[in-house]
């Protein structure tokens, strides 16, 4: 006990001289803990928000939905619910063009026709206030604020949807029953009364309509009971059910990806902080050798000395982590603002004690674990060093010290535990830890090679280099005893690698959006869908008269799979073996087409196309081509038989061709392509693709088509691209925010690493001056050293980033990966410059002091 008190007292007194400098290094930990706490709390807050708002998000206890009108049987169930006291509201959702004659504005909108009473939960906020009930009594529309902007319209204007006209009664900023923003909410919402849907005359064959019934039970638990009771009916009638809890799970699932990614970034920031502590402690220990030697001379034992400094490290970690937690809580106030528009629920700020305490604990652990190895050097200081200066640690250091192995083991398992922490999938955590270990290993190896290389270049018989003395001297600094090559290369390489990887991932995502959404010359950028058979000529005529090319006219036939190789779908769905098709392949509605060759976004990888119309003898199956991904999940290959239900008619097919489809391309892509003979008599609609470069012409063409064929929907792909880019920009902002945090940590790490050699440099600088070196010469020596260090670290970091970025893009996003070379060159240059600037700044004391110091041994 007394001993402990003594250690604490000594640790406190001993830290007097260096507290401020130590805190600077520890602030790297603060940034890491800050990131972790901010992200952790934010995710918790968000989940809580989603949980408490799940019912409001759905607007009801249960939503039944179907792509076709509810059958009489389903209607009967709904009626019985109403009789039992539950409330039922109907809703129909479909896409349509909306047009305001006064401003000539036109826009694709998401029409939601709702019954009075909807929503049962949550409030609708309209402006002017209280306009929502108008839907119950009048033929009006209440629209999303953005629509008014897009159409330059105002409240009171008349909105034309199909054949009906709706005065705009107000705008909504918040409506339950749909997830605001989000990745898939591109459409602008327009609410109209349910009873006015027929007046639009938009519901025709092939139009994509979502029929819903929203139910509020007397007892919310009845939702589950109803689903369990009516499951056979709902399955048969293809009625989807969604409860409030389902909504919650769905949303949190989407958020999980984002938060996993952010958590990893936070984790890396923390590990960077750890490296910062390690190099800071290294610098600290280097400056303490004399003190330690004197303490040892005075009779302090090795364990005592070690305990004193370990106590300092732990205390430091505690202070830094607490400050970091504070920073994290503050950041948490900013994050929702950065991500606004992406979040489905309101995020209310609450303190999350678990996360905060956990973050502090992790911060202390990281500080101690990372400090352990450099601190071990304190143990190796012999009392002799009080008599003779330093350096003698060098041979001792390489000796096999079991404690070093223990420290390394503790560090490795600590990092592993950290990677597993809060990560549900242990494989991902393990993979991450391995990646980190590998990166550090590669960086250490690169540093070792650089040391060896510098030695060969500047010393010995092979040193043929005829570089100026200052450059040679600077490079020689890389390999001299007690050089900073290893610490700077690892710390900086890691930081640069992280930043560059984040950049690469983001750049590849952006490139994907751009190439997939028709920015490319000649690719279609305007799409008309839901064209009825008798409208095809009219639409293509309008396109041509606008001077635009008709790039493709694609027939679309809706269908479902009823059997595979003779086994009925119901049978296959019950089969849970691995050989059975995945259920999505059997449940979905396929929108297929017919033709006889590949299009530009696909590639034939197996079998062969049929010739001409692909007739089949009576009783024989028609040829069909499926995409490779469908083939994989449906467990079929060339020669397998698939039976389709095309609007009630059974069509037998045999797979004769496999296509690899680039779904990323914004084109009409199909899971299944039939021969003309197979589908030419089936009910179908058409898609027409064209390209119009001028935005005004594009809008006029859309309007002309919409006026003559109100049921035809058009997509302005350029507009879609901008929307996607806007959303990605928000994600990018969040990523950049985290990257900036890591950059701050990286700079601190760099400072710490550079500071390790600071004392040496100052002594040496004064001596060189006394021996006749000018300021310029000393500057150049330092510059050569730092530029070499920075270039090396940047190079290895970028290579690691490319590897990591590729892995992430390839395996997580499943996208093609390219390296934007100019950006990487810029990162390389910027890093070298940054290191030089930081290094020179940290060394500026060399120039401040006079050569006189050399006479007074400091």
């Amino acid at each position, binding site marked *: 006990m007394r001993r402990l008190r003594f250690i604490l007292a000594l640790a406190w007194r001993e830290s007097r001289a260096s507290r401020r400098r130590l805190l600077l290094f520890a602030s790297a930990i603060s940034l890491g803990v800050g990131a972790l706490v901010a992200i952790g709390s934010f995710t918790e807050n968000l989940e809580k928000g989603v949980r408490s708002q799940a019912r409001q998000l759905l607007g009801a206890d249960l939503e039944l939905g179907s792509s076709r009108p509810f059958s009489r049987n389903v209607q009967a169930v709904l009626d019985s619910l109403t009789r039992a006291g539950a409330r039922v509201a109907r809703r129909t959702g479909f896409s349509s063009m909306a047009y305001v004659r006064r401003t000539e504005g036109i826009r694709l909108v998401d029409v939601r026709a709702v019954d009075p009473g909807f929503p049962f939960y949550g409030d609708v906020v309209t402006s002017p206030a209280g306009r929502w009930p108008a839907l119950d009594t009048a033929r009006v529309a209440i629209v999303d604020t953005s629509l008014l902007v897009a159409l330059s319209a105002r409240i009171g204007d008349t909105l034309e949807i199909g054949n009906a006209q709706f005065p705009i009664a107000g705008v909504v900023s918040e409506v339950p029953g749909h997830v605001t923003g989000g990745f898939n909410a591109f459409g602008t919402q327009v609410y109209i009364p349910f009873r006015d849907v027929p007046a639009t005359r938009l519901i025709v064959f092939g139009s994509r309509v979502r029929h819903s019934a929203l139910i509020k039970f007397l007892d919310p638990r009845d939702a589950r009971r109803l689903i369990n009771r009516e499951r056979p009916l709902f399955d048969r009638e293809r009625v989807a059910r969604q409860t409030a809890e389902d909504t919650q799970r769905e949303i949190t699932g989407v958020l999980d990806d984002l938060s996993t990614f952010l958590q990893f970034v936070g984790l890396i920031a923390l590990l960077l902080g750890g490296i910062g502590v390690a190099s800071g402690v290294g610098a600290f220990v280097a400056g303490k050798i004399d003190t330690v030697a004197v303490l040892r001379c005075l009779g302090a034992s090795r364990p005592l000395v070690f305990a004193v400094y370990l106590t300092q490290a732990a205390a430091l970690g505690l202070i830094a982590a607490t400050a970091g937690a504070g920073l994290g809580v503050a950041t948490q106030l900013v994050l929702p603002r950065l991500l606004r528009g992406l979040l489905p629920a309101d995020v209310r700020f609450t303190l999350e004690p678990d996360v905060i305490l956990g973050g502090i604990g992790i911060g202390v652990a990281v500080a101690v674990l990372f400090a352990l190895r450099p601190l071990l050097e304190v143990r190796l200081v012999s009392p002799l060093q009080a008599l*003779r*200066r*330093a*350096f*003698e640690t060098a041979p001792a250091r390489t000796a096999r010290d079991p404690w070093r192995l223990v420290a390394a083991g503790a560090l490795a398992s600590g990092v592993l535990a950290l990677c597993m922490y809060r990560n549900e999938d242990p494989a991902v955590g393990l993979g991450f830890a391995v990646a980190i270990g590998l990166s550090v290993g590669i960086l250490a190896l690169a540093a070792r090679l650089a040391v060896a290389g510098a030695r060969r270049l500047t010393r010995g018989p092979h040193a043929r280099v*005829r*570089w*100026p*003395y*200052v450059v*040679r*001297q600077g490079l*020689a*600094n890389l390999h*001299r*005893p*007690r*050089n900073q090559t290893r610490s700077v290369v690892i710390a900086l390489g890691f930081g640069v690698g992280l930043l560059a990887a984040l950049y690469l991932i983001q750049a590849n995502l952006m490139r994907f959006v751009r190439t997939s959404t028709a920015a490319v010359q000649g690719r279609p950028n305007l799409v008309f869908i839901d064209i009825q058979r008798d409208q095809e000529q009219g639409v293509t005529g309008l396109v041509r008269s606008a001077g635009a090319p008709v790039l493709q006219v694609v027939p679309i036939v809706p269908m479902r799979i009823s059997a595979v190789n003779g086994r009925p779908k119901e049978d296959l769905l019950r089969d849970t073996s691995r050989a059975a098709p995945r259920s999505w392949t059997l449940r979905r509605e396929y929108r297929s087409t017919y033709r006889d060759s590949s299009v530009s976004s696909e590639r034939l990888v197996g079998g062969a196309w049929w010739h001409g119309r692909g007739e089949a003898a009576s009783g024989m199956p028609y040829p069909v081509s499926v995409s490779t991904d469908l083939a994989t999940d449906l467990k079929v290959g060339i020669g397998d038989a698939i039976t389709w239900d095309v609007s009630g008619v059974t069509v037998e097919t045999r797979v004769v061709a496999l296509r690899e489809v680039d779904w990323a391309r914004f084109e009409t892509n199909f899971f299944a392509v039939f021969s003309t003979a197979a589908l030419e008599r089936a009910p179908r609609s058409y898609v027409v693709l064209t390209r119009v470069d001028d935005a005004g012409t594009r809008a006029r063409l859309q309007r002309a088509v919409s006026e003559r064929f109100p049921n035809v929907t058009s997509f302005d792909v350029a507009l879609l691209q901008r929307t996607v880019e806007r959303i990605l920009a928000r994600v990018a902002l969040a990523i950049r925010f985290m990257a900036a945090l890591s950059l701050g940590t990286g700079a601190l790490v760099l400072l710490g690493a550079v500071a390790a050699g600071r004392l*040496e440099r100052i002594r*040496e600088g004064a*001596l*060189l*001056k*006394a*021996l*006749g*070196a*000018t*300021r*310029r*010469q000393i500057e150049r020596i330092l510059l050569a050293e730092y530029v070499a260090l920075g270039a090396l670290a940047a190079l290895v970091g970028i290579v690691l980033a490319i590897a990591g970025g590729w892995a992430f893009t390839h395996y997580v996003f499943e996208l093609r990966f390219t390296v934007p070379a100019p950006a990487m060159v810029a990162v390389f240059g910027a890093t070298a410059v940054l290191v030089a600037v930081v290094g020179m700044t940290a060394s500026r004391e060399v120039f401040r002091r*006079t*050569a*006189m110091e*050399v*006479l*007074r*041994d400091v």
Partner: protein
Amino acid sequence: MLIANNLSKIYLSGGRPLTVLKEVSLAVESGGFLAVVGPSGCGKTTLLGLLAGLDVPSSGTVLLEGQDLGALSEDQRARLRGEKVGFVFQTFQLIPTLTAQENVQVPIELAGQRAGGPARGNGAPERAWELLARVGLDGREHHYPAQLSGGEQQRVAIARAFANEPKILFADEPTGNLDAATGGRIIELVVELNRELGTTLVLVTHDPDLAARAKTTLHLRDGSVVPAAAAS
């Protein structure tokens, strides 16, 4: 030639001015040998620093080899040191991360670099090797300072001091950290080189025997020059 006129140095310590040197004047002719003696804290090191241009005086002038140090910039003074001045320090002051030979090479390379001469063509390694042999350290070229004894380190420092054949050599208690015998040999070496090359020698010492070998002796007390009689 080294001439100092009314040198004063005032340090600000704790916000209050502390006069460390008071109007010190002296002159040493080329090839001369001056010993500076006095009790600890009297300002010997301070004076040496001013004479060598490591620091600037609060008032007074120093003429070193015909150059007025006060008229030179810090870099110009560094250049002058590199060409005409050698140093030997009490604590040796070798660069711990350079080998003996590399330490000796530093002034040669610094000067060669400045002269714009070929980086490697100035024969710096050969010259360093010669000098080390001259001070009896052949075979130890590739040792680091920590691998050398105090006396050996000081011999490396002397080799370094003579690397550019300086006109004047400053030494601040060069034997202060060595035993009497080793110190004696070090002084022999310095005096010998002084004679061989005609180098002017300015030596700070506590050692009366050593001071006795000098042509002239300057006695300092509390920052002022005092007559030899008063000093003893």
